[in-house]
C-alpha cells in the first residue's frame, strides 16, 4: 500500500507544471494515477507504452505522463491508435478519451475499433458532460439533467457505453469508477493485458460543469454518489429489476480472448510468405 505516490511521481514529466490543470476534485488525476500503477504492475517500460489522447479535459492527461504521448483530434484518438498498433504491434497502445470524444464525435470510430478488434485499450473517462467547453450536454448526459445546452433538463436518453461497446464486438468491456480505485487498477491492468479491443468506462465526476448544476453540493458529494449508487456486477445481478434500474453495475462485463486484428494481419502476411516461398 505504500510508495503509491512516489511511484506516480516517477512517471510524471518533471518539466510540466504541477499541480495539473484539472479542477479540484476532478477524477481525471485519479485515473492517471491508476493508469500509472497498472502500467507499473504489468512491468511495461515507458518506451513501449503509447498513450493516445483525444480532445477535452481527458485529452490533457497525456501531457503529464512520461510515455510516448500523442494528443490527437477530437473524437479520432482511436483512428491514430489503430494506425500505431497496426504499424507496430509490439507497442502497448492506450487510447484515452472523454465521453463526448469517444461516443459523440468519435462514436463511429469507436464501434469500428470494437468491431475490428484492434489491439488497443480504450479508456473512456465519463463525466456525463462536455467539461472543457463549459458544460454542454454530451451523449452520456442523463435524461433530465441540466446542462448549458439543456437549461430546462435534458430530453434525450444517454448511451450505455458498456452495452454499446459490447454490441459492437469489443473483446473486453468493463466499467469502473474513480472511487473504486483498487478495482480500477485491476480493470485497467486486465484490459491492457487482454488481446484485441478492450474498453474501460471510467466514471469520473465533473463537479465544476455537471455536479453543481445537478444538485451535488461538492466534489465529495459526487464521490459519495459513486460509492452508494454503484454495485459490483456480481451483486447487481442478484438485485430485483426495479433496483437494477436504479443502480450502476461496475466490474468486468466481457473478457474475450480473440486475437487482435494486428495479430491476424501478421498471420496473413506469414501465410502468404510461406505460400510464395517454395518455387
Amino acid at each position: 500500500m505504500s510508495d503509491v505516490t512516489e511511484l506516480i511521481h516517477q512517471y510524471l514529466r518533471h518539466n510540466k507544471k504541477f499541480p495539473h490543470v484539472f479542477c479540484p476534485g476532478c477524477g481525471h488525476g485519479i485515473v492517471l494515477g491508476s493508469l500509472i500503477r497498472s502500467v507499473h504492475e504489468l512491468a511495461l517500460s515507458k518506451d513501449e507504452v503509447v498513450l493516445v489522447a483525444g480532445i477535452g479535459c481527458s485529452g490533457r492527461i497525456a501531457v503529464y505522463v512520461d510515455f510516448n504521448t500523442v494528443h490527437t483530434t477530437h473524437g479520432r484518438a482511436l483512428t491514430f491508435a489503430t494506425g500505431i498498433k497496426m504499424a507496430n504491434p509490439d507497442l502497448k497502445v492506450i487510447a484515452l478519451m472523454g465521453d463526448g470524444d469517444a461516443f459523440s464525435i468519435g462514436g463511429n470510430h469507436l464501434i469500428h475499433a470494437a468491431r475490428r478488434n484492434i489491439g488497443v485499450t480504450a479508456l473512456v473517462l465519463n463525466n456525463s458532460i462536455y467539461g472543457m467547453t463549459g458544460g454542454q450536454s454530451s451523449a452520456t448526459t442523463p435524461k433530465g439533467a441540466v446542462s448549458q445546452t439543456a437549461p430546462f433538463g435534458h430530453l434525450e436518453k444517454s448511451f450505455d457505453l458498456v452495452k454499446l461497446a459490447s454490441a459492437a464486438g469489443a473483446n473486453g468491456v468493463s466499467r469502473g469508477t474513480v472511487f473504486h480505485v483498487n478495482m480500477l487498477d485491476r480493470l485497467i491492468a486486465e484490459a491492457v493485458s487482454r488481446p484485441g479491443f478492450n474498453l474501460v468506462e471510467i466514471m469520473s465526476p465533473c463537479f465544476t460543469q455537471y455536479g453543481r448544476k445537478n444538485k451535488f453540493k461538492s466534489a465529495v458529494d459526487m464521490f459519495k454518489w459513486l460509492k452508494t449508487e454503484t454495485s459490483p456486477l456480481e451483486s447487481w445481478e442478484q438485485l430485483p429489476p426495479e433496483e437494477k434500474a436504479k443502480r450502476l453495475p461496475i466490474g468486468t462485463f466481457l473478457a474475450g480472448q480473440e486475437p487482435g486484428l494486428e495479430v491476424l494481419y501478421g498471420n496473413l502476411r506469414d501465410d502468404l510468405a510461406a505460400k510464395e516461398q517454395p518455387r
Partner: protein
Amino acid sequence: MSKKSKGQTIITIYPDWCKGCGICVAFCPAKVLELDAAGKARVAHPEECINCGFCERHCPDFAISVVPRGRKKRLPPELENGV
C-alpha cells in the same frame, strides 16, 4: 494478519499541489486528515492512521504520500523501469 496497528505511518502532504477538494478528508476511515484554514489538507491525527492508503490513491493531485515508518521513502532505482 493480526489487527492493524495505528499510527505506524509517515504521512506527507504537499500543500503546493493540494487543491483542497476534500476527498481525503471526507473518506479517511480513521479521521486522520482535516482541511486547514487555507483550505488545504493537513495531517491532524497521524496517530490514528491505519495505513489503508485510501487518501494517496484517491488524491487527484498526487499530493499525499503515506509510507510505513522505518521504510525508505524513495523507490529503489530498479523500480524505475524505463528501458
